[in-house]
């Protein structure tokens, strides 16, 4: 206990060490990516530049590339409709892409609800609120199963009746209606009711994409975990922080790769870590950096005190 160091508030050490830009690299890239995909869809209706037509549920790029949301596709199948070849092709392309780069890359790099829940989490932290209701992580899988069962029983693509992702996306492109109320409800839910509740515990779309990316190639690795100084910043920013411990706190022969399908590959842990413990790599790169010379890093602790 005597070796415990005093840490600066969340993210400050990373900023001090790497500069503001360095400590927000992946955050900025993610926001750029989210904006890019949104603008791609909006160029047509707003400026008449038709690169992509449609919405996240189904789209056509440059008149040749069809893309279909595989979760909507699956519900349609279960509801009793075998879609035409175009939709089948589109769903297959999306499935393969996310199976390779990580299913939940959709959540943190594309989904338009992500900035909403990130905003709620930012305010939640600023206000120092309690984490509130935290249902089990498996809850979203249960909800996903329920959605599929209801689709089968009712013959309607059930989640699209309430899905805030496609509703917000479609709202921006085709007309909002009362979708803003739904977005506000999710913001308030994440702010007051449940910390990182929607994306982390409820959303069945995220659950589905998590399953898709179970064997994905792109992974975050705690390769430099011997440099970890237990500041806990990564746990504070990670939207799925249960995925960190097995990699970061594993024994020396445990893989440093974050292999949990819950990881959204958002890279927030990479940004916030002053010691550069984490990095993006592929799932076969399980090398751990050798412990650094004692002079190079602040005094590492042998183990956690509890």
């Amino acid at each position, binding site marked *: 206990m005597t070796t415990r160091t005093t840490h600066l508030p969340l993210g400050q050490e990373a900023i001090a060490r790497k500069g503001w830009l360095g400590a927000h690299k992946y955050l900025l890239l993610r926001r750029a990516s989210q904006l890019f995909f949104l603008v791609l869809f909006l160029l047509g209706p707003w400026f008449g530049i038709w690169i992509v037509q449609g919405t996240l549920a*189904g789209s056509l790029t440059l008149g040749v590339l069809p893309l279909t949301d595989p979760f909507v596709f699956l519900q349609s199948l279960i509801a009793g*409709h075998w879609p035409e070849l175009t939709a089948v092709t589109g769903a297959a392309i999306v499935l393969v892409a996310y199976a390779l780069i990580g299913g939940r890359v959709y959540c943190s790099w594309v989904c338009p609800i992500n900035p909403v829940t990130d905003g709620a989490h930012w305010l939640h932290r600023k206000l120092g609120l309690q984490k509130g209701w935290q249902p089990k992580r*498996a809850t979203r899988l249960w909800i996903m199963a329920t959605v599929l069962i209801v689709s089968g029983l009712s013959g309607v693509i059930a989640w699209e009746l309430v899905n805030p992702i496609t509703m917000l996306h479609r709202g921006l492109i085709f007309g909002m209606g*009362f*979708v803003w109320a739904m977005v506000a409800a999710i913001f308030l839910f994440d702010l007051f009711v449940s910390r990182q509740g929607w994306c982390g515990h409820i959303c069945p779309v995220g659950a589905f994409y998590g399953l898709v990316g179970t064997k994905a190639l792109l992974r975050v690795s705690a390769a430099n975990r011997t440099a970890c100084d237990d500041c806990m910043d990564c746990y504070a920013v990670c939207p799925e922080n249960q995925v960190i411990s097995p990699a970061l706190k594993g024994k020396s022969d445990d893989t440093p790769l974050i292999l949990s399908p819950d990881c959204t590959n958002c890279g927030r842990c990479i940004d916030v870590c002053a010691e550069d413990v984490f990095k993006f790599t592929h799932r076969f790169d399980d090398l751990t950096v050798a412990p650094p010379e004692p002079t190079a890093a602040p005094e590492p602790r042998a183990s956690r005190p509890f």
Partner: protein
Amino acid sequence: MSLVGKPLAPNRRRFLQDAARAAGGCLAAGSLLAYLARDARALPAEALRPPGALPEQDFLSACIRCGLCVRECPYDTLKLAELGVDAVATGTPYFTARDIPCEMCDDIPCVAACPTGALDPGLDNIDDAKMGVAVLVDQENCLNFLGLRCDVCYRVCPVIDEAITLETQHNARSGHHAVFIPTVHADRCTGCGMCEKSCVLPEAAIKVLPARLARGSSADHYRKGWEEKEAKGAPVVEGIIDLPDRLPGPGTDNLVAPGGFEPRFNLPEVTQ
């Protein structure tokens, strides 16, 4: 192995509790979702689906709400239902004939754009589309029914003289004119809504309705005697005895006939 009298192992107990809790929560959420799904099937009568749309029940299992049909519609007829604004299942395409009717493009771009087949790609001739059926709902206000020659619905019909014809009848009001009654023939009407859009009245007297509201149906076992007779070329029932007809003649109450006598009772004279 009996469970009675032996407390469950803590892990097992926790597992069962968690499973029961999750199942209960999912049942509640699922019921709510199923209620919404049932609600979504209630398509308002004035909302028409694009050409080739599957029957409503199948449509909601097939339409992924991508909006590609809306994008391809050159006349901005189609729109996607907005949450809480339109009573149509949110995000699905529809049009309101009185606002912008379907222009019945020859190449049916909306159907070609649909990636899932929610708009049936088997529809290759727009004249076979069945978006609804026009019905002259208000005979009291229709100008043609009043004996005027409005004829607008008839003139604008893309399937003129087939889907809408003008049938003449005696004009009882003037006594010496004809009324030209716009008459819809449901087997040729595509439900495009041009007639409803163009009706000159403040509220259209002719409206496109979904077939379920617009049409009755004949019972399967009904046969029309005159058609059967024509098809057979002879009376349908054979061996009918041809009884003598009661023709006017001597002994009948018909003064015109030779030997006829005056009826015992005459209808009262109508005085104008």
